[in-house]
């Protein structure tokens, strides 16, 4: 297992990034015409870093992550560059991509109840990945499977390893999925809404496990979520997406302290929170963002958030706001950046 990935010397231009996504554009051709799902997303992921992709449903965050190991359906066109340690994944063959999937980049999906194969024990499913990617013997793979279940803090792993998914709770299954995902020591773990389907009491445990993986194995994590609480808890850096475009990008503390884009401000206003020392006020209304996410049929040359934006002016609909720093190391795509009141 290679956990010290940062030692290797990448050959690509983004020198210190483990994964570098550059100017990613994803278009789906459908019967009703093209859908511009992702327009110009760029980010770097360093080893051991946790990067959150945040946004509403349909903003392109999952599609962005799925495109990295080539998991999109055949009707998707992906442009840009996706460099994993300098190697452009977009140029790989189907077979080469299969070797990357599960081994170097692996996924944890949202639905723990249906994401495990009901026909086999969880142990067999973990062994499966190990035997395929690592060529382990059955016995070695079994021992490793028990270790992995222990790593994701499943009690009595020696016995649990022989259980079927239907014998486990949702939280357990999510842990098993994480165990499968990290079985081969991936460099990048993509967690797509890993806690959304779980009870709040279990969510914290799963987040703890993810944090533990980063700390112990040095796994870089792309965290896809719309839950800003999860972001604040876990992420190092945040990319806020809106309608397929990145609108703001910053360190997590910087973003929460000084949100620049009105959409980010809106997201933060829509979260229940308590002020310093003040109890959560009953009856205090959460702010919602008026309007709906625009259709992705076109990629207009204007600010896509303008129709819902309280700060919008003529300039917002005349051209596209560039993603440029409005504070140090804190780019936002807005002509009127700043914090709400």
């Amino acid at each position, binding site marked *: 297992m290679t956990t010290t990935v940062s030692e290797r010397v990448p050959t690509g231009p983004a020198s210190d990034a483990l994964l570098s996504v550059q100017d990613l554009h994803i278009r789906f051709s459908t019967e009703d015409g093209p859908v511009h799902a992702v327009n110009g997303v760029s980010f770097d992921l360093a080893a051991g870093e946790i990067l959150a992709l945040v946004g509403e449903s349909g903003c392109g965050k999952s599609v962005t992550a799925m495109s990295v190991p080539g998991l999109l359906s055949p009707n998707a066109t992906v442009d840009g560059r996706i460099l994993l340690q300098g190697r452009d994944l977009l140029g790989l063959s189907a077979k080469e991509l299969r070797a990357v999937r599960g081994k170097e980049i*692996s996924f944890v999906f949202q639905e723990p109840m*249906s*994401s*495990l*194969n009901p026909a086999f024990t969880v142990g067999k499913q973990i062994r499966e990945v190990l035997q395929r990617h690592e060529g382990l013997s059955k016995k070695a793979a079994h021992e490793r499977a028990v270790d992995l279940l222990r790593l994701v803090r499943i009690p009595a792993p020696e016995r649990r390893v022989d*259980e079927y998914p239907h014998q486990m709770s949702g939280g357990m299954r999510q842990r098993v999925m994480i165990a499968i995902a990290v079985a081969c020591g991936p460099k990048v773990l993509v967690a797509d809404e890993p806690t959304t389907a779980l009870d709040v009491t279990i969510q914290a445990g799963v987040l703890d496990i993810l944090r533990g993986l980063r700390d112990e194995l040095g796994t870089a994590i792309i965290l896809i979520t719309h839950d800003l609480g999860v972001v604040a808890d876990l992420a190092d850096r945040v990319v806020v997406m809106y309608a397929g475009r990145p609108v703001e990008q910053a360190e997590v503390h910087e973003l929460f302290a000084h949100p620049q884009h009105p959409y980010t401000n809106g997201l933060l206003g829509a979260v229940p929170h308590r002020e310093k020392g003040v109890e959560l006020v009953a009856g205090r209304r959460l702010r919602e963002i008026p309007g709906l996410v625009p259709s992705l049929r076109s990629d207009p040359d204007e600010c896509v958030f303008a129709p819902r934006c309280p700060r919008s002016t003529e300039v917002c609909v005349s051209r596209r706001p560039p993603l440029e720093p409005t504070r140090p190391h804190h780019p936002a795509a807005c002509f009127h950046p700043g914090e709400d009141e």
Partner: protein
Amino acid sequence: MTTAAAPMSQPGPALAVPPPRQRRSRRLVKRFFRRRLSVFGLVVLVLILALALAAPLFGDPGRNDFSAVLQGPSAAHPLGTDDLGRDTLARIAYGARVSMQAGVMATLLAMAVGVPLGLIAGYYRGWADLVISRLTDLLLAFPFLILAVGLAAILGPSLRNVVIALGISALPSFIRVTRGEVLGLREQDYVAGAVADGAGDTRILSRYILPNAISPLLVQATVTIPEAIIGESVLSFLGLGVQPPTPSWGTMLSAAQGFLSQAPLLAVWPGVAIALAALSFNLVGDGLRDTLDPKAER
């Protein structure tokens, strides 16, 4: 699956280790044995199989005894004798071999061809699906028995050809059932997960899709076997199947036709045998369907 939503809403103690539960297979067996009719079917089935396996114990089915022709049941011949003085019990027992073979082999043949075709059609879709599905429609346009009779007539009479004719006739239902299952299974989250883990098509089909499609296929098999058993009898009855003097339930029925007034029992025994064999498979199949029904799970 809709049943999946229920356990999620329970704020159960996720970390507590539940008491060891029975393996799924044992629970399924238990559930099956709660159904009396299915157990009855299973018992009859086992008896017929035992009869077929122990056939030599019941004497030589070809030995003529012209001193005892068309006799009723007696100590020497528990089920009587036929028009050539042959022991009916021995012939029923040997006939069971033919019927079971024809039923099981034809079904296995249909599965061996139909399941892969169904997997390809359902998984890859596209033109492969188009071709396979239209072929299925074509075969389904003919009723099962008519198709079998036609094919047997072309192929010529023999047990092997009966198996082929019945196997082809049973093919479309296996393609349909498999394809339908695959269409649902390929959209499952765990299949998407397998792709994300780097699994290829072969592995996905063999490890993720086929194992989860086994239950309906097993049930389809228990429906097809009795169909094929009856089909074999029909073909043999019409002279398109097993040829005399090889005993088969169908040929026995056919021969008994001529002596319905003198020895009606001669037609009753193979008739009862066919009916019991078909019934027992159907009962077992019903039991399996109810036992393996995922909605009955949990």
